[in-house]
């Protein structure tokens, strides 16, 4: 018998190896199944509803006919204003935590609080938004109140993703700046930000685009049940796709089946477009990395 022949033990280990590979592979495929089913169903049932008219006309006849134009526009408004509010706040906080804050118990406590804030249920954020923005600041139910509520909700993820981008810039660059007499801000402005801004922006867009589908935080703060006009300012109420989907699926009798599917497909389409844009942007910038 050759010394390189498989022994009983080798054979047994090989059988185990095969078993575990199959097990883990099977789990992975199971994971993909729901995604495929959802996307396929949406396309099959909602696809026929999509048309130029669907995107560019308002719902009509008690929301049983027509399109999604005001809701589509409203969703874009809400997400855009939320972005404008959360980016400066989140980036500033992340800059402080990553570049200025000393590593002590207070900083660690703040970091912990931020992570926990990400776990607060969206309905709680909604009620906070009503109390803070609608009532206390007197914004009323408006795009502004809804967007600010969404912004608060996404702040934790914006901070975390920004901090990761900042910390991806090698420490040696900061040390080089400081050793020449640069202040923290001079190091940030000249070296850290130029080398992380792309990562920060793509990360932020990616995170905020996820809020496109949020319903609870906006339904008490700014999204309207039915409002066939377009909003003119951030102090107007507006329709939104997510709430519209909820309404026509559960609150209105006699809606033909293809309508909610069409709305769902549109909603998913927006998320996919935003995500792929930001992933493509990131891949493009990663290609031009400077070190």
């Amino acid at each position, binding site marked *: 018998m050759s010394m390189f022949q498989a022994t009983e033990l080798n054979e047994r280990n090989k059988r185990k190896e095969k078993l575990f590979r199959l097990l883990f592979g099977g789990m992975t495929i199971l994971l993909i199944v729901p995604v495929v089913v959802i996307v396929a169903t949406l396309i099959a049932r909602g696809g026929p509803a999509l048309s130029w008219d669907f995107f560019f006309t308002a719902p009509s006849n008690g929301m049983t006919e027509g399109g999604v134009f005001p809701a589509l526009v409203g969703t874009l408004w809400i997400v855009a204003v939320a972005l404008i509010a959360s980016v400066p706040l989140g980036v500033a906080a992340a800059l402080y935590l990553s570049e200025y804050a*000393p590593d002590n118990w207070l900083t660690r406590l703040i970091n912990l609080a931020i992570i926990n804030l990400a776990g607060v249920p969206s309905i709680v954020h909604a009620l906070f938004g009503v109390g803070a923005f609608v009532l206390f600041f007197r914004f009323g139910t408006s795009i502004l109140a809804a967007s600010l509520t969404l912004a608060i909700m996404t702040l934790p993820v914006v901070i975390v993703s920004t901090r990761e981008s900042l910390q991806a810039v090698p420490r040696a660059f900061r*040390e*080089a700046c400081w050793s*020449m007499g*640069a202040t923290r801000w001079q190091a940030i402005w*000249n070296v850290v930000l130029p080398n992380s801004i792309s990562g920060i922006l793509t990360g932020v867009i990616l995170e905020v685009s996820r809020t496109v589908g949020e319903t609870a935080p906006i339904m008490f703060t700014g999204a309207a049940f039915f409002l066939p006009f377009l909003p003119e300012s951030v102090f107007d109420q507006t329709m939104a796709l997510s709430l519209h989907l909820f309404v026509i699926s559960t609150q209105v009798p006699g809606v033909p089946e293809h309508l909610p599917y069409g709305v769902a497909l549109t909603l998913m389409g927006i998320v996919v477009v935003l995500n792929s844009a930001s992933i493509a942007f990131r891949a493009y910038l990663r290609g031009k990395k400077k070190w």
Partner: protein
Amino acid sequence: MAELADYAIQSRDLNLWYGDFQALFDVNLAIRRGIITAMIGPSGCGKSTFLRSVNRITERLGYVRTTGSIDVLGQDITAEVVELTQVRKHVGMVFQRPNPLPLSIRKNILFAYDLHHAERPSAAQRDEIVEKALRQVLLWDQVKDDLDGKATTLSLEAQQKLCIARLLPVKPTVLLMDEPCSALDPEATAAVEELIWDLRGEYTILIVTHNMAQARRASDECIFMLMGKVLEHSETAEMFVNPAKKETADYIEGRYG
């Protein structure tokens, strides 16, 4: 005994702690102006800690505590009223791994200059500053056609030379070098050593090294440290031929460290 101003760096009873760990014990050193002084000793002996104390870069770690003082050209840099950015202007630092900024070669040279000058000089003057600094480190001929190219794509040797060059436009007094050749191959090491030798006289250079041969051939005076204390400080030739302490002799001959 030399005059006071003959010393570029003078430390008095310098003690330094990282948290509870004491890294320097009553370090009293007088480093003469315009020469190259090498600091040698086994890892953890405090030589890098001392070097970093001279431009106070140690302080960015919140848990560092010091007592005693360090004078640069007769002026206390540890005093309350001292402006850190001025200390760092007069005391430049070269790191172990070349760390040019991820900017163009030109911007790397002008970085420190711009930090320390409120007014922007004319484009012609800026070009002059860049050329002068790059000529001083013998890099001009190699990079003159690619000044807007990325500094981080240069060879390690060129990067390290650039890191020296970027300190020169602000006219520092002291250049601190923390094992500046340890990331370089032997040829690059020779080239950078030669450059450091050329800068001698105009600048006071304090260099930490693990390389005995380098300390021996490329320094005027040598300081041997062990366990946070200065054991011996003498002319390099003297130390390597005739060390005063047994520990020094043992270290130089490679019996430990």
